[in-house]
């Protein structure tokens, strides 16, 4: 009961839970919440049994597009997406990266064609021993997730 009082209830929309505290404002940035006109609730440094301190975002009347969940999967792969309808969680969506992501990240290779011509970026997602790496479809460079700029 006490938990629920800390953040206002959401009738319809999306809740992003279990965001590591240090990543909350990154999430705000990549979802462009600064210019979003919907009702938004942000919370940070909430106690979490799983990760110590967590952040939380509630966005009213908005579903996340696939490229948005892909961005989240890169930044905070262990966050949880809850879809709310009429105050009920109707769907819990885990953040799983598809085998290929389009238009989500920028190639860090300065001489990659995608940084010089109007080319939609495409990266293969390589999941290897818990570490996710991305491989540019064009210049074929393999990069760590931390090395790419999320668009």
């Amino acid at each position, binding site marked *: 009961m006490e938990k629920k009082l800390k953040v206002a209830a959401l009738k319809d929309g999306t809740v992003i839970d279990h965001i590591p505290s240090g990543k909350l404002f990154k999430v705000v940035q990549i979802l462009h919440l600064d210019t979003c006109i919907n009702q938004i609730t942000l919370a940070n440094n909430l106690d979490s049994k799983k990760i110590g301190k967590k952040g939380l975002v509630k966005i009213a009347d908005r579903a996340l597009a696939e490229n948005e969940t892909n961005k989240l999967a890169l930044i905070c792969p262990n966050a949880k997406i809850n879809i709310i309808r009429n105050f009920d969680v109707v769907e819990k969506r885990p953040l799983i990266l598809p085998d290929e992501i389009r238009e989500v990240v920028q190639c860090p290779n300065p*001489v990659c064609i995608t940084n010089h011509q109007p*080319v939609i970026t495409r990266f293969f997602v390589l999941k290897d021993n818990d570490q996710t790496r991305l491989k540019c479809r064009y*210049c074929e460079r393999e990069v760590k997730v931390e090395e790419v700029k999320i668009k």
Partner: protein
Amino acid sequence: MSNKSLVSIADYSKQEILAILESAADFELTPNRKTLDGKVIATLFFEPSTRTRLSFETAVIRLGGSIIGFSDAATSSSSKGETLNDTIHMVSCYADAIVMRHPLEGAARYAAEVSPVPIINAGDGANQHPSQTLLDLYSIFKTQGTLENLNLCLVGDLKYGRTVHSLLMAMSHFNPSFRFIAPEELKMPEEYKVFCRKKGIKFSETSELNENFDDADILYMTRVQKERFLDLMEYERVKNVYTLKNEMLANSKTNLRILHPLPRVNEIDPDVDSNEKAYYFQQAQNGLYVRQAILSKVFR
């Protein structure tokens, strides 16, 4: 994308690689066969590479095709700001296939996606140069009689050298073992070692060139470029250590052959040239037959 394009050596299966080598051997026997009769091939060189361009153009002419194109970006419409997409579409109105060299990495993959006609990658920056890889394979096949179970020493710039990376990937079909010989700064990148481990390919590493190839079948030399070094003192040291001299070949196997993608600077002392194990000039000539095979495959 036209599935006849050749962008990266990884686009070819083991069977396709072997078929190209077989076809190249046929062209070596009879170089003038009109498999491109009536075809127009565009050679678009957005950066100059006389060696590669002449090899492709000779291949087209020997196959009975005609050539249009440009040999450096200054004379093309891209210098007026035309996008690659537009250049490719314009050229594909006239040409049946496009041979393209471009300074940007990934340019060939992108061109192959937007092009209505097949694209043959003649080098995209430091990324891929599949006809070079295929001519390396053909040279190995010709001199060793097989590609299977060979011992290859890769020497020099193994960090940035695209030819050695592509060669490593292509040879992985044939149960090779590798010895990587490179200065500390230019070691084989981790991702290729991971690749070898995954495929169960044996390899060892050293930074000393001298007599580390006595059990090798192929000694693949690459250029060590000055601009790769932060410390110029280190470059001067490495440059002298990584020069292959004739006397170093005294204990090498009789079937050993020395390859180099050329042009060389001082990685191979001229006194090696007269050794029968020196194969780099024939290797360059093999490029013609391999490119004839690649071009013919496009129209088969």
